[in-house]
């Protein structure tokens, strides 16, 4: 660095003499700032992505394990039973970061998770490649296709054997509840880039394999390429019935709609009396539409005159309060009713929260959707 600066200054001696006094030091400082080490290195070709050697990764793993033990000692925990979750918590505690991007925060993970998986050397000392499909360029992908096709031929041979013995068995693979791996997951599995066309060919071949009658013999191989779908079984927790002093069963429910919040207690052995905020429902909801909303859950289950209801509702207007009470009473009624009927209620939409809210007004428009009057000229 200093050498470069000296070179530059020596070259500019004549130029400096020509300049006036004040401008001289400003120009010199400008010169000093501009000369960097980047200027010295010329004709160096751009290097590709860093290749991590096995020795390097091994060293990183050793350092990680050592660091894990140190961290455990620092936090006062047992080094033997220090899991990754404990590490994450400890790092978040010791290095609190206000950054919004989670991936920019300090992280301490096993080197296999941080350094991308790379291929080991493809050929040995005599320079002969290890894999028999090396010269195709995409060895893992084509060897996968080769394997799958081989499995298909095996299945066909097995089918022919069965037919020769006059047996007629069919073993299909159960594909319900799972999906094929996506392209990124397959790329990760093969440690090789795939094109969309290649991926679609692979999936088509697997589909073809699965359509064969006796594909059950290769079931565990095919399941390697299937991933379980996230089972979102919405098991709503159904509260058990509670009993008050007189032995009457009752149940509570909460409901929301727009800005209204309602809490409802539904009593058994009733005559259909409904009290809202201490007022009878006929007086509280003069509009028939709101009263119909209150009625709907009971009418759906056929229990119109059999329950009493005591509700408290706050916020919103009449319609939204009615909707909130409807949701709350439907939820309360789940405790009185069998699971099948509860499923019917869910499919009818009685147990779903209505997410509709007032849409915000946008700038440049009069309302949420209404635009200003358009004038041609």
């Amino acid at each position: 660095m200093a050498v470069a600066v000296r070179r530059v200054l020596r070259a500019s001696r004549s130029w400096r003499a020509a300049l006036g006094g004040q401008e001289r030091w400003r120009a010199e400082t400008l010169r000093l700032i501009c000369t960097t080490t980047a200027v010295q290195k010329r004709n160096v070709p751009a290097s590709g992505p860093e290749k991590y050697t096995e020795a390097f990764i091994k060293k990183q793993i050793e350092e990680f394990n050592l660091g894990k033990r140190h961290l455990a000692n620092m936090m006062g925990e047992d080094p033997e039973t220090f899991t990754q979750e404990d590490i994450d918590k400890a790092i978040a505690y010791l290095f609190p970061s206000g950054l919004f991007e989670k991936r920019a925060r300090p992280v301490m993970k096993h080197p296999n998770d941080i350094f991308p998986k790379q291929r080991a050397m493809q050929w040995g000392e005599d320079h002969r490649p290890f894999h028999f499909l090396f010269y195709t360029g995409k060895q893992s992908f084509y060897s996968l296709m080769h394997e799958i096709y081989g499995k298909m031929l095996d299945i066909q041979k097995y089918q022919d054997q069965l037919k020769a013995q006059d047996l007629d068995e069919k073993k299909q693979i159960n594909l319900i509840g799972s999906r094929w791996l996506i392209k990124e997951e397959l790329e990760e599995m093969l440690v090789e880039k795939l094109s969309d066309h290649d991926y679609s060919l692979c999936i088509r071949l697997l589909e073809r394999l699965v359509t064969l009658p006796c594909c059950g013999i290769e079931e565990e191989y095919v399941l390697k390429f299937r991933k379980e779908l996230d089972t979102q079984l919405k098991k709503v927790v159904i509260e058990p019935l509670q009993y008050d002093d007189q032995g009457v069963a009752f149940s509570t429910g909460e409901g929301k709609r727009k800005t209204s919040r309602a809490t409802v207690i539904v009593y058994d052995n009733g005559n259909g009396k409904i009290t809202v905020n201490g007022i009878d429902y006929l007086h509280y909801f003069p509009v028939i539409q709101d009263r119909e909303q209150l009625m709907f859950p009971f009418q759906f289950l056929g229990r119109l005159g059999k329950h009493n209801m005591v509700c408290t509702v706050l916020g919103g207007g009449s319609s939204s309060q009615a909707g909130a009470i409807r949701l709350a009473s439907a939820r309360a009624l789940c405790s009185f009713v069998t699971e099948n009927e509860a499923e019917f209620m869910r499919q009818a939409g009685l147990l779903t929260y209505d997410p509709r809210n007032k849409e915000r007004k946008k700038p440049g428009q009069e309302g949420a959707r209404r635009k200003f009057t358009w004038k041609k000229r």
Partner: protein
Amino acid sequence: MAAARLLRAVAPRFRGLESLGKAAPRTSQLSSRLYGTLLAPEANPPADPNAINEKLITEPLKHSDFFNVKELFSLKDLFDARVHLGHKEGCRHRFMEPYIFGCRLEQDIIDLDQTVKHLQLALNFTAHVAYRKGIILFVSRNRQFGHLVEVTAKDCGEYAHTRYWQGGLLTNAHVQYGSGIRLPDLIIFISTLNNVFEPHVAVRDAAKMNIPTVGVVDTNCNPSIITYPIPGNDDSPLAVELYCKLFKMTITRAKNKRKQMEVLYGLQNKAESG
């Protein structure tokens, strides 16, 4: 005879291949690829450990059929595998006319006497290449036999390419694979054409990179650039299975012979020194 002459011309390159432990041979291998076999530098004067290598390499060249490939097949086997059946008269390639015996009901019949001679030469050549631990690449773009060819290559311990041929696999190898790559020393074509009935790109690329080729040429193929053409049918399953079986047997035979010779010369050397 022609085979032995060809091998002697090619020998300097293989000699460079043999002494791979030293730095010089890699450059000699590259230079021989780029500038032709004649410019390959002379091998080092045989020191004691290399004397065995010299004997190992020169011994097979003194016999015309060292690996006895003639016994692997007969004309009757070729006939039974329907190797003599060519395509229709309209598909005939002009350069295949010397190899065609005649035409019957508009279907060309390939001359099996010539096929026998060409097949013996080709098998002898592959055996010599395999004996010297060369890399052999099987190429075929016929989708019906792709799996079979790959399985054959795997069983021999050699390499196969039955998929879409990317442009620079041979000619742009250092960019495609990385530096320090060793290209195939022999390419065997089970079918010379690709799926649109044009000559396979690898035929031309191998000629450009000075890699000898062995290929089964049917009546609609161009045999001119292929080093050891084998006129014969490339569409029947029986014929292709026969070719795969023959190549596999020659390669395994050559490799076993190599191991035997190494053991033999090793013992001889010990007996002499001891």
